[in-house]
């Protein structure tokens, strides 16, 4: 289990991570989500012991983080990079050796993974010959080749075609099934929604909300109703029980005022347009994100919802 307790990290003028606490458990996929500049990368770097927190504690299975623990961690950074002139298999063997893996075991593991990701034919080629998608897959293999107990994936799906995405998804779910702790950082809510058991939404280094996906949605979203129809539905916005409506010629999405039942909307529609589909939906993580981050930004008077961190640190977390 990975646990962070009241972790604080400041750069010269900015508090990048401000009192963050969370736990990621074995056999679970934990989503660390937030807008750009929220402090995700700083948090991940502290977990990997690349930079030290100013205060607070970071432990894995009760042990404080150290260089020795790095062998049990796998990391896929958002900005991918491999040695361009090195051959595919050599790169994997090098990465595995740096995780303390012995050469024969590394070779066997590399074979299995390359096979699985359809890269076996490329193992003798230089990395610069690979397509971007292939290099992405190779980098993923590099992060799991040593069978780590804790894996940190930063935007693992970006730049992959749907088939590769599925392969990766399957591999991530398998890690979860085998009891690994998976920390997943993203700002693509659809991915988080599909994968994560629990999430932590952060902004400006602070927690906005955390919990299981269902808890977060229940606590911070409001049901939406989607309708497909034929006819003229322009009157919808004027109905007294409608809080917000997005109306397109053949499709609309409505949020009702509190205390209003969906039936009421259905009745109002029924006589005037031809309803083809009527669905009450739980809010998407996307709308929760937009609402929470947007509200927080309004409180700050900061329309961007992010924070410029002065170029002090890699500016992309």
């Amino acid at each position: 289990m990975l646990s962070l307790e009241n972790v604080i990290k400041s750069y010269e003028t900015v508090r990048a991570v401000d009192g963050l606490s969370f736990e990621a458990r074995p056999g679970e996929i934990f989503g660390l989500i937030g807008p750009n500049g929220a402090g995700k990368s700083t948090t991940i770097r502290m977990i990997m012991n690349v930079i030290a927190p100013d205060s607070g504690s970071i432990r894995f299975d009760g042990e404080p983080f150290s260089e020795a623990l790095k062998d049990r961690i796998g990391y896929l950074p958002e900005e991918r990079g491999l040695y361009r002139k090195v051959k595919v298999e050599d790169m994997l063997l090098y990465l595995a050796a740096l995780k303390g893996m012995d050469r024969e075991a590394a070779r066997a593991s590399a074979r299995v993974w390359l096979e699985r990701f359809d890269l076996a034919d490329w193992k003798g080629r230089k990395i610069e010959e690979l397509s971007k998608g292939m290099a992405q897959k190779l980098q993923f293999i590099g992060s799991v080749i040593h069978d780590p107990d804790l894996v940190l994936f930063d935007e693992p799906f970006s730049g992959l075609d749907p088939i590769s995405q599925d392969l990766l998804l399957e591999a991530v779910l398998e890690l979860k099934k085998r009891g690994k702790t998976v920390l997943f950082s993203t700002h693509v809510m659809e991915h988080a929604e599909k994968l994560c058991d629990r999430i932590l939404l952060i902004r400006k280094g602070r927690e906005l909300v955390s919990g299981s996906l269902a808890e977060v949605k229940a606590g911070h979203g409001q049901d939406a109703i989607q309708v497909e129809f034929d006819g003229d539905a322009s009157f919808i916005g004027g109905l007294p029980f409608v809080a917000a409506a997005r109306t397109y010629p053949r499709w609309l999405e409505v949020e009702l005022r509190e205390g209003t039942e969906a039936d009421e909307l259905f009745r109002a529609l029924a006589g005037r347009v031809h309803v083809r589909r009527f669905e009450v939906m739980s809010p998407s993580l996307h709308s929760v994100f937009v609402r929470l981050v947007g509200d927080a930004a309004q409180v700050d008077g900061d329309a961007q919802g992010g924070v410029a961190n002065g170029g002090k640190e890699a500016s992309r977390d």
Partner: protein
Amino acid sequence: MTKLGTIIRQEFKVAAANKTFIILTIIGPFLILAITVLPGLLSMNPKVSSGGGPVAVSGGDAAVQSALEAAIGTQGRKLVRLGEDDASRTQAKLDVGKGGLDALVVLDGDWMDQGGTIYTKTGTDAILFSLVEQSLGAVAREARIAKSGIDPALARELAREVKLSIVGVGKDASEKKGIEDAFMTTLFTAMGFVMLIYMTTILYGQLIGRSVVQEKVSKTVEVMLSSVSSRELMIGKILGLGLAGLLQYGVWAGMALVLSKLLAPALGIAAPAAVSLGNIAWLVVFFVLAFFLYAAGYAAIGAAAEDESHLGQLAWPLLIFLIIPLVMISSFVMNPNSTLSVLLSLFPMTSPIVMLIRVLVSPPPLWQLALCLGLLVATIYAMMAAAAKIFRVGILMTGKRTTLKEMMRWISAA
């Protein structure tokens, strides 16, 4: 294998499979050939450096013309005798301008008092000028002696020069003759050794700087740091490339010994005394020290640099210290114990090169050698510690061009 060992092996492989590495390993022996055999070859046969185009003379009597012919003959040049008319002179000047003649010597009737004129295209052929001047002077002197009525034998006796024999003395007062060429051969050897140290230090320094910058630019550094500490990464790179450098020096030292001990005697050429086993050992020692000193510097600026061009800018302060001894090399050879030589052979940034020159020319006092090595080792230690701090902060920094001032602050902050 430890993680550090893994990094060292990888970096060594990358460096030794590098094109520059192979090329330099091949070119190195030629440089060594130049310092071991060439000086001997040159002193044995001055004609090696001769061979020039014809020189024309207009005016002067037969005596001065044949004196000229003999003088430039030592350079393998031919003398062309021209008429004294303006047309031939104009034509000859044209030939000089076009390159058909190397020079035109014009002697008017009163040349012994007024001097002659030499027309040349480049104005740089100093040896030719002095040969011409000497032969004109000799002819004029004879003529003046004859005119004054002094007995020519007496005049020659009065003007006789004093000969100076140059004898080298060892520590035990042992004498060593035939060192007239010592300045040239020592200069050659020192030049060769210094060029080797200079080139390899810059080469390996830049390899390290580039290797670190590329780690940043290609974004591999985050993955590396998820496995090893920044200190291991830096030291691994330095040692890996350092081993490659040492391998190269091993090859060269072997070649130098083979050439000077086997090939040179076989060709009947004396290899310069300065190319000895002891001096080659010093070369390796000073290379290793210079390497670590500059490797630490380059690793630090590599980590702080944004990209390779930025690395080049940040490297200037380091380069200056390498260039200073290079441009002053002949002054160090002539005056190995001057205050300046001693100071620069103790100052750690220049000492590897300057002290090596002093060792080659005449063994410096033991305390200076010890102080030099002590200062160097201490400076390397401090430089490594500072570099590790800069490396740790700089390696993760992107999107910003770090200044030297900021790097100084990182050293004092951490």
